[in-house]
């Protein structure tokens, strides 16, 4: 609990700081409190993951510190950051921290060793600080490359995946691409996208965590006793993928509209095409579940999920599935 508090404080320091040094400090605090959360003495995988995380983040922090010092040296303690190569170095460091595409290699590997709650934190909360810092950088070329690579790799990487954690990791990379592109245009859209993404990933990881689901075949065999849970879970999958009638489409919609207004057609086409690929593999998973032509185990245990969790889950699922309609209702209300 202490570490979580410190972690949150670290992120807040980063977000609110007005100098690079302060931002670096916040990131360090955040990192150092997240490591104990990750590591679990009984599990070798999580230790390895925390080590990997530490190494990567430490390297990124070093580079960040190095470049911000460089910046201050060159610009006489001025926070002007129009200097392109310096800011490219900062950008690279931040992209590495957030796990965006050309520097994403640690991310799926690490996810494989985490529990679902840690994975959720890694996918959502840990992205706030670096993304916020990226939004300060006024540099487009590296960001564009990163966006394109993120969406493409996120899409293609998830295609052959059977591990749910890796699947979520690649999905996260894909969404990160969208978030970076929204970051180029407006911070508020990024915020909306991030909130929706966090909400949708939370629903899924919440379920995965309760039922300890780590692989795809578990998905098919586990929910025999409750078709409602199963269907709603897969609908959430589709919502995360961004299929139109569900809530997940809304942030994508906003980004698509903004990018169109900014004439970023090439980027937009690439992003949408790669998102189609993600949708394809989400659909492929859901298809066999919706069509009910999968193998069911006879020895499946009774599911035990307490009613609080069920209610929470169902309320969230309701919003995830009908959110888009509800939002349009609100639009007509005011």
């Amino acid at each position: 609990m202490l570490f979580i508090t410190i972690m949150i404080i670290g992120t807040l320091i980063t977000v609110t700081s007005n100098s690079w040094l302060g931002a670096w400090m916040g990131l360090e605090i955040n990192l150092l409190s997240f490591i104990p959360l990750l590591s679990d003495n009984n599990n070798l995988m999580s230790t390895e993951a925390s080590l990997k995380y530490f190494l990567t983040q430490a390297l990124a922090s070093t580079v960040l510190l190095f470049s911000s010092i460089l910046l201050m040296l060159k610009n006489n303690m001025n926070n002007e950051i129009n200097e392109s190569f310096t800011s490219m170095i900062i950008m690279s460091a931040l992209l590495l921290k957030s796990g965006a595409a050309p520097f994403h290699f640690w991310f799926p590997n690490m996810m494989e060793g985490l529990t679902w709650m840690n994975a959720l934190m890694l996918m959502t909360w840990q992205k706030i600080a670096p993304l916020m810092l990226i939004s300060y950088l006024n540099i487009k070329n590296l960001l564009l490359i990163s966006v394109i690579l993120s969406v493409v790799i996120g899409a293609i990487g998830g295609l052959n995946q059977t591990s749910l954690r890796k699947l979520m990791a690649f999905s996260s990379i894909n969404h990160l691409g969208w978030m970076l592109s929204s970051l180029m245009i407006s911070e508020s859209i990024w915020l909306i996208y991030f909130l929706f993404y966090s909400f949708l990933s939370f629903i899924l990881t919440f379920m995965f965590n309760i039922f300890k689901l780590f692989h795809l075949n578990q998905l098919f065999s586990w929910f025999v006793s409750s078709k409602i849970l199963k269907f709603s879970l897969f609908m959430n999958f589709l919502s995360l993928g961004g299929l139109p009638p569900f809530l997940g489409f809304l942030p994508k919609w906003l980004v698509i509209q903004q990018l169109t207004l900014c004439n970023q057609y090439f980027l937009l086409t690439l992003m949408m095409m790669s998102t189609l690929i993600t949708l394809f593999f989400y659909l492929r998973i859901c298809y066999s579940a919706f069509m009910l032509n999968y193998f069911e185990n006879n020895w499946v245990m009774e599911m035990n999920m307490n009613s609080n969790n069920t209610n929470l889950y169902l309320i969230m699922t309701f919003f995830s599935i009908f959110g888009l309609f509800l939002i349009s209702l609100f639009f007509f209300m005011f």
Partner: protein
Amino acid sequence: MKYLSICSISFVNLISISLSCFLLSLYFLLNNMIYFIEWEVVSLNSMSIVMTFLLDWMSLLFMSFVLMIASLVIFYSKEYMSSDENINRFIMLVLMFVLSMMLLIISPNLISILLGWDGLGLVSYCLVIYFQNIKSYNAGMLTALSNRIGDVALLLAIAWMLNYGSWNYIFYLEVMQNEFEMLMIGSLVMLAAMTKSAQIPFSSWLPAAMAAPTPVSALVHSSTLVTAGVYLLIRFNIILSTSWLGQLLLLLSGLTMFMAGLGANFEFDLKKIIALSTLSQLGLMMSILSMGFYKLAMFHLLTHALFKALLFMCAGAIIHNMNNSQDIRLMGGLSIHMPLTSACFNVSNLALCGMPFLAGFYSKDMILEIVSISNINMFSFFLYFFSTGLTVSYSFRLVYYSMTGDLNCGSLNMLNDESWVMLRGMLGLLIMSIIGGSMLNWLIFPIPYMICLPSYLKLLTLFVCIFGGLSGYLISMTNLYSLNKSLLNYNLVTFLGSMWFMPYISTYGMIFYPLNYGQLVVKSFDQGWSEYFGGQHLYYKLTNYSKTLFLMHNNSLKIYLMLFVFWILILFNFLLFL
């Protein structure tokens, strides 16, 4: 439940409505009244879509006849379909058919008539496929698609009618008769009527529709549905007589009459023979209509409905007794085994031929005499009289095959004539087909037609009939070894007996190339090129990319960190030296 079956209830209801319609029609006829009722459904941009009812003696009389035949047919079905599990559904379908027929008859508005028109098409499809087998499905599809052409024509006519601001065509027929738009509407309506009444080139569905249960054939495919086209054109008769449409229709319907008469002479299926005779009579109605004598067409329509329904009901009784065999070569000697049914059969057959003082005589003889005194070309004149001869010919051939000689069916048969429910239904129509002609004659024509003919023309009809009967006997006569002599001329017989190849033309002929090209496209595109370069190839490629990506992911973490450091160094170098 024995007395309160759906058949009995509908019978009582329909016959009482029929009687009241009949009395109303007498009243209307006597006082020369017309009731015109309009209900505005929706009004849009000064165009109002209205439900219109036109009640005059013609519609009321037609309605009363349809209802009477329907009631007797339903009564008859009580026994005919008694072993059918879904008899309730069957009767409901028939009732729905009657309802759409009513809507068709009383609407002189192109939009509201569509309700009845499409209802007829739909219900007749359901009735044709009632016995669920491949043959019925094919027949039903042919019927439905042929009729669909007419439906589309009617829709197009509605679109053209938009010019006039209303779809009540009866108000525009006379005023606008010289306009091009009206000609378009008229030709489209004629097309619709020709599909419904199975004129050339849409004839092939009528014999195919005989896959329906026999009561349906009696009601739907002889007396009512197929006359819907004739009825529509009766309402449109002004257009026909003032433009070339009438001439075209005269030619086509004359040919239909001729073709059907020839076809019936070489057919061996009992129901199909009757269907072809229906077709020939429809041709007769259409052709006299196209010459402008719409009252005569109406007259023949009504009398024909009576004796043709009776003929079909007799055929149904015979088919029941022949263990569901319809081949007339297996029949024979039925006049001994089933005397009452045979009597009905013969009366209706003779009425069909125009035997004096039976129902068909009044209408048919009058039509032929009107044709004789009219100004008409030689070809049409030939078609009229030759087809009349052919009618007698196939009727006598039918009698020869089924009524005379010995029974040619299997050894163990139980022929009986004691299916009283069916017989009662038939006897009701028997009376009508005896007295119906003279009754209608007195009713419809207030002033007798003045017909003045030289004696050879007057006797021509009689001569043609006698000659036809004789030839009917001759072409079906078999010699010692049961060889039908007419079959020696095999190619000609095939051509004539298969309705001039029309069933092939309107099925294989229409669909052969589309189907083959469709297969080609499916094979080479849907399952070939577009599959290879479309979905499958894309999926294959993406999966391969994914594999390559994971090859990169297989490295140790330090390599990635090293690469990152290199990247930073490169950037730093640029920073220093640029």
